[in-house]
């Protein structure tokens, strides 16, 4: 779907901690499994003192390893496991203007993310996925799908200081103030930051971009903002476009999500909640788009069997009526799992899809 865990040797090197023997063992193991062709070069650079050149090249090699791991698992569409992104929220925010980071907030259990406040009008600073995409396009042997965090999620996961302060004197009702300020924030993110980034990716040859919007259903009254922002940032782009939403009440998306223009696929999570019955919503609302079917749970270490995955796919085919509408993927990114668990899940995903395909033909 998006992320893989980060290469430990890259993290050790970038942090200036010194590369451990276990990091090198990791490199050896995953080079062998994936057919990674640059193990020797990677080892050589890891032994060099850190410099801008060594850092840049190691990041490319981590990206290449991610590509090869996904290809070796058998996926039809790959990226690089988001090898060089800090994290889906922090990476675009750090590379845009108007934000200040205050510290960590809790996501769940002992997992946190660094949350920023929007303190000025947001602005484009750099095409934060372009270098990474250009490299992946040069080196991938399979087709590419580029994950990009969407504007609604970037807004929802930030504190809205600037747009709320800007409107405060005009409101006595805090609910209305927050609602209107949020819309301003989301649409500015769509226009000023996400759209320029998408445009540059398409110009560089991106053929499929997935907008990641895990926050889309957080506030049901604001779902129209998410739709409006998606349309604002993708208008006129000649590219396959999909949206990924997870851990949400999908009923709340309808009927608003029918107004997404130029969106050919909904990539949804089902395995975590065993919620495949929610596919009936597409039939109920006559939504004929493709579905990116989440078949493995990315928050548990249990590795789903190919047979279980096959059964999930078969059930989805039964509900949707057309196997051609179904793309099979993990519920979400795998960065919270180990490499071993992530790879096992991906391999079984591919095997499960093959079993389902066999039965269908």
């Amino acid at each position: 779907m998006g992320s893989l865990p980060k290469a430990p040797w890259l993290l050790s090197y970038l942090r200036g901690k010194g590369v451990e023997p276990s990091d090198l063992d990791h490199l050896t193991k995953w080079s062998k499994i994936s057919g990674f062709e640059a193990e020797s070069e990677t080892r050589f650079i890891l032994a060099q003192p850190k410099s801008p050149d060594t850092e840049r090249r190691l990041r490319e090699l981590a990206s290449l390893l991610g590509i090869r791991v996904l290809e070796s698992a058998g996926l039809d569409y790959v990226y690089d496991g988001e090898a060089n992104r800090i994290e889906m929220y922090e990476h675009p925010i750090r590379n845009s203007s108007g934000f200040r980071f205050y510290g960590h907030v809790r996501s769940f259990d002992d997992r946190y993310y660094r949350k920023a406040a929007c303190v000025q009008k947001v602005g484009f600073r750099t095409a934060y996925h372009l270098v990474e995409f250009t490299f992946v396009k040069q080196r991938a042997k399979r087709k590419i799908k580029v994950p990009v965090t969407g504007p609604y999620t970037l807004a929802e996961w930030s504190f809205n200081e600037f747009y709320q302060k800007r409107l405060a004197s005009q409101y006595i009702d805090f609910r209305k103030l927050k609602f209107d300020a949020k819309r301003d924030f989301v649409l500015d993110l769509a226009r000023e930051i996400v759209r320029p980034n998408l445009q540059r990716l398409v110009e560089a040859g991106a053929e499929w971009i997935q907008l990641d919007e895990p926050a889309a259903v957080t506030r049901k009254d604001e779902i129209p903002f998410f739709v409006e922002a998606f349309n604002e940032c993708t208008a006129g782009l000649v590219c396959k476009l999909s949206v990924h939403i997870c851990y949400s009440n999908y009923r709340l998306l309808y009927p608003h999500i029918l107004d997404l223009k130029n969106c050919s696929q909904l990539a949804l999570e089902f395995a975590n909640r065993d919620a495949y019955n929610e596919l009936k919503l597409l039939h109920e609302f006559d939504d004929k788009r493709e579905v990116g079917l989440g078949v493995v749970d990315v928050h548990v270490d249990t590795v789903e069997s190919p047979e279980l995955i096959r059964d999930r796919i078969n059930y989805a085919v039964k509900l949707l009526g057309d196997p051609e509408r179904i793309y099979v993927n993990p519920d979400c990114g795998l960065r919270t799992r180990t490499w071993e668990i992530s790879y096992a899940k991906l391999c079984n995903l591919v095997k499960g899809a093959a079993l389902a395909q066999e039965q269908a033909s």
Partner: protein
Amino acid sequence: MAALGPVLFQAYELTRNSLEHSRSTFTRLIPTGIFAPENINIGIFGMGPFQQTSEGKAMLKADLAGVFPRSETLVEATRANVRGRLSREQLDAAFDRDYAALVSLQMEADLDPIVDGQLNWQDHFRPFSELFTGIKVGSLTRWFDNNTFYRQPIISGKIGYRGTSLQRYFRGDILPAEGRKKAVLPGPLTFAKLSQNMAYRSLADLVEDLARALKDTTTELSKAGYEYFQFDEPALVFDQIGKEELEAARRGFEICATGTGGEVALKTYFGDVGHIMNALLDFPVDCIGIDLYATSIESLAKYDFDISLSCGCVDGRNSLVESPNDLKGLLARVRDNVRSEQLVISPNCDLEFLPYSVAEKKVRLLSETRKVVSE
């Protein structure tokens, strides 16, 4: 001096919440006559409704809502522990340092009562999978409309109080002997609604048993010196609630909120309490907490509050730090619209949605606001 302005009453009558709680200074007032704050005899009322400054001025009460964020140091410690780089003992020591810092922060801000911040709670319900029978831990679920998640309790059997790990989750041992200790617990209706019920035939039955188990919890906490119990009920206000659920909640509070030996608050947040306030006034509680960022203040104008009103006026979900004068203005709007003789100021919800550095500022803001309001 008229810190809160003149207030109209019908009758004065003192009642005590618990005869055996001789130290309790809580009183329930059904006041009468017109008075200004300088007429209140602090000697009769003890700790409430106002604390008294050394200059003899009456000051608004303030306290925290519940879960406090972990400091950056503690965040790193928990991560290191998960990765096997920090032992359990070292992690416990890191938690203890954060607990101590939070207690100091509240004491410096002169807050009353004091909380432990629930720093080692993974979510609002997790401790109860140990404290109660009949609960398993389920899958990740969004916590209302926030970007935080809880593991949904699965009600797998009869709910009862077991008491395992009570002292681990309610850190009365680190709270100071002077000042009142506040325990924050999920309310029975919210607990029931946000769980996956696999064992009870009706929500009302589940609410009742949860209320009994919560009552047993407060009984044990009372023995440990807790004098204030806050039951969080965001599910009462987040979405429209039906009459049956409201009645189930009320019956639940009849069980868990009475005879605790201390003061009891029902705290609502993430939604407008105005449309159910009439019903909430029949709940046997001493204080109702409202979220001023989600509630129409004007909708409260038709009610007479003979109990405390905790005004959630510090926004726990935006890093924008309000100014004391802005909050003074907001509280003035409350006083213009709401007939209550006892106002308390607090964050509208837990401060856990903020980074630690911002949450610290919001605590100090409570203290600064009290001073500005009392001027």
